């Protein structure tokens, strides 16, 4: 066996140096040839995952000795529009601090971005964001958030089609609630009857009456000592039986109280459901929208929500990527043939976070002769993956510093994720800015708001949101949407009123919680339109509403009122029955106590 040869007992195999050197040389060649390409692809993929939108990088160069990274041709697609780029930069230079790199952390010392363009059109649609990233989930959450808004449709139904409705009683909540009340009432009545029968009051009262009658007019002299003792014993036993029966009655009262209260609240709920039925019946009339808040929400609701949904999206990303606290950070491990697992980073106070941009001052130039062309200054401070390590909230500010288009812009925001807080707030205010164009829902019109002032504010503290969007456009144009459909009389009126407006003053707000947001839009357009529609339709609408109300009242009177009356009767009877039982037991007890006194017992 070769075990005993001296060669076998050596620990190091020096001949292995040759293939090891070859392997190292191969690795070095591989690094030179492929490292930048791999890092570029990995960076683009990670950025796409993080931002939830497609990110492209044409070239990436690493300067290992400085150390710094240069990105050329960076494009970030708009997560809400695949044919647009949110951001394009011809060159991004990132200078890093070297020591944190040894801990696998990116601390950006200086960031320089050149030739930035925003909102540019794409040649090809951007591929959808990776489905497994948080951003994709956030995008889904934002779409869900958007779907929660109850934006009314602008309905301009012709006057002659306001229909006479024929209500199906089973559709009315009042009738449905009354039917449930009948079931509840039957159940309560059956329970009270059964339990009352179980009290065996008749036997107890008969026994008491018999003892009282037997001792009526009797005294100790007539009964003698033994007779009196027996009589006292009988009376006391009967009194105990009465006492026990009274306790059973009280138990019955307690046990039936919740059932009786249920009947009372059921009766009230039937009354309350009537309001909902009036609204339901009114909805069946297909009345035109003529309340100003409804018109405001219908006309400007979607365009307003589009503004806020973008802020909610970025806020969702910020809350995930900039978490508060020093707990270990978990994220799915890298994609590989083996299981990905979970990768955990351990955050430590007074250390480097995984990523930190201490301060970034960017001077951006948007070239061309477009309305947004000009120079801008953007400042970012304390952008980090571990706010509690840095100890300062992330801040940003943007302002327009030059350009010939007459536009001014300033804004800023704070993302305060310190000490368990999650508060994101931002404000942006612009004058002379191009305002959005959008189709007027329900009308063959397109609003071209032109240039104007816009002030957008958004604040999110935990689950609570608060936002406002104020717009003033002084030179509004109204264009047909090209479909050219025939208009009814009311639509013609609306088009005439709307196209008569030269300016728009819009004030929209979003409030409530993320799960239950509330949208409110007010504008001069909805006030004017509501007033004109009301003038024209007021009488017709009032008549149709009266008819609907009468139908609801009739159905309620026929179907629900008898059940309500029956439920009230059952309740009253049950209460009366219990009160009677108690009174009869009390009377019997008083009578027996009188007998006891006449027997000389105090």
């Amino acid at each position, binding site marked *: *066996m*070769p*075990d005993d*040869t001296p*060669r*076998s007992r*050596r*620990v*190091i*195999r020096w*001949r*292995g*140096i040759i*293939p*090891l050197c070859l*392997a190292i040389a191969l690795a070095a060649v591989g690094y030179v040839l492929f490292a930048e390409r791999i890092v570029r692809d990995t960076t683009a993929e990670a950025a796409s995952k993080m931002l939830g939108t497609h990110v492209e990088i044409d070239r990436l160069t690493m300067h290992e000795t400085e150390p710094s990274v240069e990105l050329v041709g960076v494009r970030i697609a708009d997560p809400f529009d695949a044919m647009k780029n949110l951001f394009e930069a011809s060159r991004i230079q990132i200078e890093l601090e070297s*020591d944190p790199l*040894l*801990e*696998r*952390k990116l601390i950006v010392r200086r960031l320089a971005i050149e030739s930035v363009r925003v909102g540019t059109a794409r040649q090809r649609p951007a591929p959808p964001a990776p489905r497994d990233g948080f951003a994709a989930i956030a995008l889904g959450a934002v779409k869900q958030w958007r779907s929660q808004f109850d934006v009314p449709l602008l309905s301009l139904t012709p006057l002659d089609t306001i229909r006479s409705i024929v209500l199906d009683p089973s559709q009315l909540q009042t009738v449905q609630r009354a039917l449930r009340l009948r079931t509840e009432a039957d159940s309560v009545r059956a329970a009270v009857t059964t339990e009352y029968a179980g009290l065996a009051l008749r036997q107890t009262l008969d026994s008491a009456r018999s003892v009282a009658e037997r001792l009526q007019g009797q005294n100790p002299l007539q009964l003698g000592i033994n007779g009196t003792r027996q009589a006292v014993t009988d009376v006391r036993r009967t009194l105990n039986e009465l006492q026990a029966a009274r306790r059973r009655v009280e138990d019955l009262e307690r046990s039936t109280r919740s059932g009786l209260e249920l009947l009372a609240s059921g009766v009230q709920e039937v009354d309350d459901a009537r309001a909902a039925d009036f609204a339901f019946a009114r909805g069946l009339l297909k009345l035109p929208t003529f309340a100003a808040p409804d018109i405001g929400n219908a006309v400007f609701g979607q365009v307003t929500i589009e503004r806020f949904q973008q802020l909610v999206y970025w806020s969702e990303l910020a809350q995930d990527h900039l978490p508060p606290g020093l707990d*270990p950070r*978990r994220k799915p*491990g*890298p994609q*590989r*043939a*083996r*299981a*990905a*697992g*979970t*990768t*955990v*980073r*351990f*955050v*430590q106070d007074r*250390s*480097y976070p995984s990523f930190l941009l201490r301060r970034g001052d960017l001077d951006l130039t948007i070239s061309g002769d477009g309305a947004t062309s000009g120079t801008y200054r953007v400042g970012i401070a304390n952008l980090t993956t571990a706010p509690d390590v840095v100890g300062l909230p992330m801040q940003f500010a943007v302002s327009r510093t030059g350009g010939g288009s007459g536009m001014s812009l300033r804004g800023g925001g704070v993302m305060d994720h310190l000490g368990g807080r999650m508060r994101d707030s931002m404000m942006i205010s612009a004058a002379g800015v191009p305002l959005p164009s959008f189709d007027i829902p329900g009308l063959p019109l397109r609003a071209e708001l032109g240039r104007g002032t816009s002030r957008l504010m958004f604040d999110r503290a935990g689950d609570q949101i608060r936002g406002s969007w104020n717009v003033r456009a002084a030179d509004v144009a109204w264009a047909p949407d090209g479909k050219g459909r025939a208009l009814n009389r009311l639509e013609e009126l609306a088009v005439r009123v709307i196209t008569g407006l030269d300016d728009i003053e819009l004030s929209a707000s979003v409030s409530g919680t993320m799960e239950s947001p509330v949208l409110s839009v007010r504008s001069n357009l909805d006030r004017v339109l509501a007033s004109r529609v009301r003038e024209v339709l007021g009488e017709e609408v009032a008549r149709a509403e009266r008819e609907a109300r009468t139908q609801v009242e009739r159905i309620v009177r026929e179907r629900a009122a008898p059940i309500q009356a029956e439920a009230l009767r059952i309740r009253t009877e049950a209460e009366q029955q219990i009160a009677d039982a108690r009174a009869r037991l009390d009377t019997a007890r008083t009578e027996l106590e009188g007998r006891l006194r006449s027997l000389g017992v105090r």
Partner: protein
Amino acid sequence: MIALLKLLQSLVKTLHSDGTPHQIGLGMALGAALGLTPIANVHNVIVVVLLIMLNVSFGAGLLAWALFTPVGFLLDPAFDRIGGALLLENASLQPLWTRLDHTPFVPFTNFGNTVVLGSVIGWLILSVPIYLAARLAVVRYRTTYGTRLRQWRIVQTVTASRAYNVWQWFHA
């Protein structure tokens, strides 16, 4: 089929090499790391360097890699749980992980990944029985079937090839 043949070839070469049972056992124990743990990690670079530079059976290492790769896939859920328990559920270890996460170079080992940490721990635990079992198997084999198999033509063909000579560089 080709993979199976290569595995067979590797097995024959290893068993009939001049390596001692101890060297083959160590080679198997080291090579198991390549199969049991996710391959693209720093600790596996160290394992390969050790396989090349230490006086252990390189062929056994490659054989163990091939043999333990499917085992690694199968054990991934267990490794994930072991890593998760160590990284996230054991509060007394958190200061250690935090310190390591802020120590230069250490984060590049991906020790913070549950599967990586769990599989490395799993490999360290399994390496001792792997070494002992491989060593015992080689001794048993050589004292029973080894001599007869050496006379087979296919074994002689393999061992006489030029590739085999190069291969022998890595054997004691």
